[in-house]
């Protein structure tokens, strides 16, 4: 028999603090977008107020959640403790200050955004150092390591490109602003977030569904095909060759499809027949992600380059795939963190609640349904440019986000 012990010992306060900041940023982002719903209707995404909302959503919410979750999940997925937790707390403060300053400056004084951006970049760099040092300690690298490292490389590229954009807004002088912007968005949403969600899903989906005996045979093809597609797509922004763009989207669609094949196999071999509802919502997000990739490929083949259509497609990519994935997984991660903090020392001594008892599943179903309705309604209204319904659906999305955050905070009272 081979024995072994894992002492991950991540201080629960670290991931929780990241998550609490992120939840606040999530609501702020929705409020900013609600106030500017008329601009959304007109399909004007490249203006300061929308930048502020988008960066509160993507940097403040999604990146901070991803960071907090990684502090908790990397030791679990890679069986390796975090390199330096004190460094993690310092990184949290620097990043939170940087992201807040950067997002606000982007909206109110874009010509000074560079200064907020600098602090945010330092925070992200600290995070990258933390993760690379942690992954270096992992004894046996596997495909999850590849996905996580790939995601971190793209996070680095995202902040380099973002920094160049902020430089251009503040000082100017860098050519190819449009190509850098397209690369920045692709690095961030597809490179960083998608690879990260792929990687963690290989650990979380079998864990939450109690699946055994699956092969992960498509993980390697998924990684290399998606990475190749990404690189070709980004090259197309610079070479400005339409065929390259289509080939890039084929690669990304293929990679995503291979990932879905693995997830499907994991689910068919699951022991837990009745899945938790929030986790099922994360699985819905995977299908959304596949759908958006199919649409992007189709638009590319048929030469649809309308900026409003692509703007809303990016919105769907962010909300339907990335944000929905995170919203679902958080309903598992936060109860786990809080349970560990409050009840871990009582197991075996007295009756403690199960993780499922920490959340209100019925409420989660209502909230997730509202998220789907508001996101779909917002997209259709935006494409049809109907001001009143854009306002109403963005209002519904804001209200749902606020209720979601309250439902997560309620977990912390149990």
């Amino acid at each position, binding site marked *: 028999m081979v024995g072994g012990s894992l002492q991950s010992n991540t201080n629960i306060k670290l991931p929780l603090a990241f998550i609490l900041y992120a939840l606040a940023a999530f609501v702020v982002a929705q409020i900013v977008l609600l106030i500017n719903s008329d601009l959304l209707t007109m399909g004007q995404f490249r203006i300061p107020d929308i930048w502020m909302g988008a960066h509160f959503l993507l940097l403040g919410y999604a990146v901070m959640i991803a960071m907090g979750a990684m502090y*908790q999940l990397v030791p679990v997925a890679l069986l390796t403790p975090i390199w330096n937790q004190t460094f993690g707390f310092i990184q949290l403060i620097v990043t939170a200050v940087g992201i807040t300053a950067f997002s606000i400056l982007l909206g109110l004084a874009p010509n000074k955004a560079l200064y907020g951006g600098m602090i945010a970049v330092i925070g992200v760099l600290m995070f990258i150092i933390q993760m690379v040092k942690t992954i270096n300690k992992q004894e046996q690298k596997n495909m999850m390591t590849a996905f996580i490292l790939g995601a971190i490389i793209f996070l680095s590229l995202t902040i380099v490109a973002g920094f160049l954009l902020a430089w251009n807004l503040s000082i100017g002088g860098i050519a190819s602003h449009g190509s850098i912007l397209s690369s920045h968005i692709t690095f961030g949403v597809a490179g960083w977030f998608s690879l990260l969600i792929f990687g963690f899903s290989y650990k979380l989906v079998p864990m939450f569904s109690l699946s055994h005996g699956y092969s992960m045979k498509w993980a390697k093809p998924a990684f290399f095909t998606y990475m190749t597609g990404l690189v070709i797509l980004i090259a197309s922004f610079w070479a400005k060759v339409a065929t390259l763009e289509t080939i890039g989207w084929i690669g990304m669609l293929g990679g995503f499809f291979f990932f879905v094949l693995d997830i499907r196999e994991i689910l068919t071999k699951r022991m*837990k*027949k009745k899945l938790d509802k929030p986790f099922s919502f994360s699985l819905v997000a995977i299908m959304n992600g596949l759908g958006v990739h199919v649409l992007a490929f189709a638009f590319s083949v048929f030469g649809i380059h309308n900026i409003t259509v692509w703007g809303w497609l990016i919105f769907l990519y962010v909300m339907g795939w990335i944000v929905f994935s995170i919203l679902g997984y958080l309903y598992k991660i936060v109860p*786990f963190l809080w349970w*560990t903090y409050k009840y871990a020392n009582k197991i075996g001594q007295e009756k403690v609640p199960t993780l499922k008892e920490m959340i209100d599943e019925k409420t989660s179903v209502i909230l997730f349904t509202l998220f789907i309705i508001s996101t779909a309604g917002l997209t259709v209204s935006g494409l049809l440019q109907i001001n009143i319904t854009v306002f109403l659906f963005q209002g519904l999305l804001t209200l749902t986000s606020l209720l979601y955050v309250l439902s997560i905070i309620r977990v912390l009272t149990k």
Partner: protein
Amino acid sequence: MSLENKVGAALFEVIDPELGINIMDLGLVYGIAVDVEDNVNIVMTLTTPGCPMHDSIKAGVERRISQIDGIGDINIDLVWEPAWTPAKMSERAQEMLGFA
């Protein structure tokens, strides 16, 4: 009741908080041995290596057994081979998961 049986019975009260099923019905406990000095050695596993509940469940086992009168030292040997499989679960656990 022998001390082994008392330990075994006590472990039915240690619940995996993710699944809501005790670790005995889940088949996580591979062996319980009590020596002449009443020291307990438990060989057990978890449903997956790197289970986030690792520390909590192991400490819970230790805590529950320490409540038994006359128990000596407690040693928990966490192993990954043979790997846990769903076949190790009792029928009751399989029913609770909707599998049986």
